[in-house]
C-alpha cells in the first residue's frame, strides 16, 4: 500500500477539515438548523392553534345548541300560554254567556211569574165578580118565595146548633 508520506494527508486533512467545518457551520448548518427549528416551532404552534380553534368551534356549537334548545323551550312555553289564554277566554266567555242567559231566563221567569200573578189576581177578581153575580142571581131566585126563605133559615139554624 503506497501511503505516500503520512504528514501530507494528516496536514491537509486537518487544515481542510477545520476550514470546511467552520465554513459549513457559518454558512450552512446555522441557517439550516435555525430554519428547521423555526419551522418546527411554527408547525407546532399552528397545530396548537388549530386545536384551539377546533375546541372553540365545539364550544360555539354547544352554545348554539343550547340557545336553540332554549328558543324551542320558549316557543313551547309561549304556545302553551297562548293555548291557556285561549281556553280561559273561551271558558270565560262561556261562563259569561251562561250567566247572562241565566239572568235573562231568570228575568223572563220572574216576568212570567208576575204576569201570571197579576193574571191570577185579575182572574180571581173576575171569578169573584162572576161568583157574586151568580150568587146574587141564585139568591134572588131562591128567595123569591116565602117557604124557601123559611127553609133556608131553618137549615142554617140547624147547622148552627150543631156547631
Amino acid at each position, binding site marked *: 500500500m503506497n501511503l505516500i*508520506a503520512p504528514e501530507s494527508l494528516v496536514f491537509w486533512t486537518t487544515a481542510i477539515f477545520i476550514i470546511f467545518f467552520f*465554513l459549513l457551520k457559518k454558512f450552512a448548518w446555522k441557517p439550516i*438548523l435555525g430554519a428547521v427549528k423555526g419551522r418546527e416551532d411554527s408547525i407546532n404552534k399552528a397545530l396548537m392553534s388549530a386545536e384551539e380553534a377546533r375546541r372553540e368551534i365545539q364550544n360555539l356549537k354547544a352554545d348554539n345548541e343550547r340557545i336553540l334548545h332554549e328558543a324551542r323551550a320558549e316557543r313551547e312555553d309561549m304556545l302553551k300560554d297562548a293555548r291557556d289564554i285561549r281556553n280561559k277566554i273561551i271558558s270565560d266567555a262561556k261562563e259569561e254567556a251562561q250567566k247572562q242567559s241565566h239572568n235573562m231566563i231568570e228575568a223572563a221567569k220572574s216576568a212570567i211569574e208576575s204576569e201570571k200573578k197579576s193574571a191570577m189576581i185579575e182572574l180571581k177578581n173576575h171569578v169573584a165578580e162572576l161568583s157574586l153575580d151568580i150568587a146574587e142571581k141564585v139568591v134572588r131566585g131562591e128567595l123569591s118565595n116565602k117557604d124557601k126563605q123559611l127553609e133556608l133559615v131553618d137549615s142554617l139554624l140547624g147547622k148552627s146548633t150543631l156547631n
Partner: protein
Amino acid sequence: MIAKKSIKCLVTVILAVLPFFSFAQHGNEHGEEEIEFNASDLINGHIGDSHEFHMFDYNGEAYSFYLPVILWTDNGLTVFSSKEFHHDNSGHHVVEKGDNSFVRDNEIIYYTDKYATLTADTKNAFNFDARPLDFSITKNVFSMIFSAIILFLLFFAVAKSYKKNDKAPKGLAGFMEPLITFVRDDIAIPNIGEHKYAKFMPYLLTIFFFIWINNLIGLIPFFPFSSNLTGNIYFTFVLAMITFIITTLSGNKTYWKHILMPPVPKALYPIMVPIEFIGMLTKPFALMIRLFANITAGHIIILSLVSLIFIFKTPAIAPVTGFFVLFMSALELLVAALQAYVFTLLSALFIGQAVAEDHH
C-alpha cells in the same frame, strides 16, 4: 425498463473492467514479454494514494491529471508538478530543483544522494532522514478538496433556499432535510441529550456528510472520483483525533471523576486509572480502524473480483465477475452510508458520555 436496466448493468461492468484491458495491452504493444499480472500490486496501486491522478491509458501511454508536489526540504519550500517524475515510481528518474534533487520510489520522494544509500529495510515512509517533508496535494487531498467544495455548494444552496422559503422545504432542501433531522433526532439527541446536543450538531453533521460523500466518491471508478480517501488510515486518524479532542475538551467533572477516581476500592486505583486512560484512547482508535478497514476491505474485494479476469486470463469469467462486482458495489453503497452513520453515532456517543450528568 428491464432493457434499460440491463444496459446500465452492462455499461457499469464495461466501465469497471475497461481500465484493466488497456493495462493488459500495455506489455503487448511494446513487444515485450507479457508482464506477469500481479493482483496485489494492482490493488495496492488503487487503494493507495499518489502524486498524480491517473485517468486512463491510451496506446500504452498513461494520461494523468498532474497534481502539485510540495516539499519542505532542508533548503526550504520547493513546489513543482508531479509531471516532472514522468510516471517514474522506481527511483530512476531524477528531478533537479534548485539545490536539491529528488527521486520517487513507490510514491515516496527521497533525496537522490541519500536514496542511493538506502536498503530495503530503511526504504519506508518514516525514514525522515532520507526524504524531505512531503505536503503534496495528492490524489486523496485533491479528492478531499473536491468533496468539500461539492458539500459546501450543496448545503449553501440548501441554506439559501430556506431564506427564500419558510414554508415546507422544496427540491434540494426537501431532499437534504430528512438527513439533517435524522442526524439530529436519531444520532445527536438520543446520545448527547436534549439540552446539550445543539452545540455538537455542526460537528456531527459535518463528519456525517463528509465521510458519506467521500465513501461514495471512492466507489465511482473514474476521474475525478475513485480516490480511496476514507479508506486511508491517516484520514481516519485525523477525524478520530478530532472526535477525541472534542470529547476530551467537553468532558465535565463527572467524566474526569470517572477516569481519575473510578468507583472502585482505592487499592485498585493503580490498575483502574491506567485502564481508564487507555479506554479514553481505544474509543477513537476503534473509530479510526473501523472506518479504514471497512472501506478498504470493500475496495479490495471489488478489485480482487475484477483481477480474477486477468488471473484466469479469459474474458469468459467476466460475466461472473461482473455480477459479483455489481453485487459488491450495491453492498458498498450501503456500507458507505452505514459507516458514515456509525462514525457519527459513535462520536455522538463518546461526546454524550463526556457531557453526561452524574446519575449515581
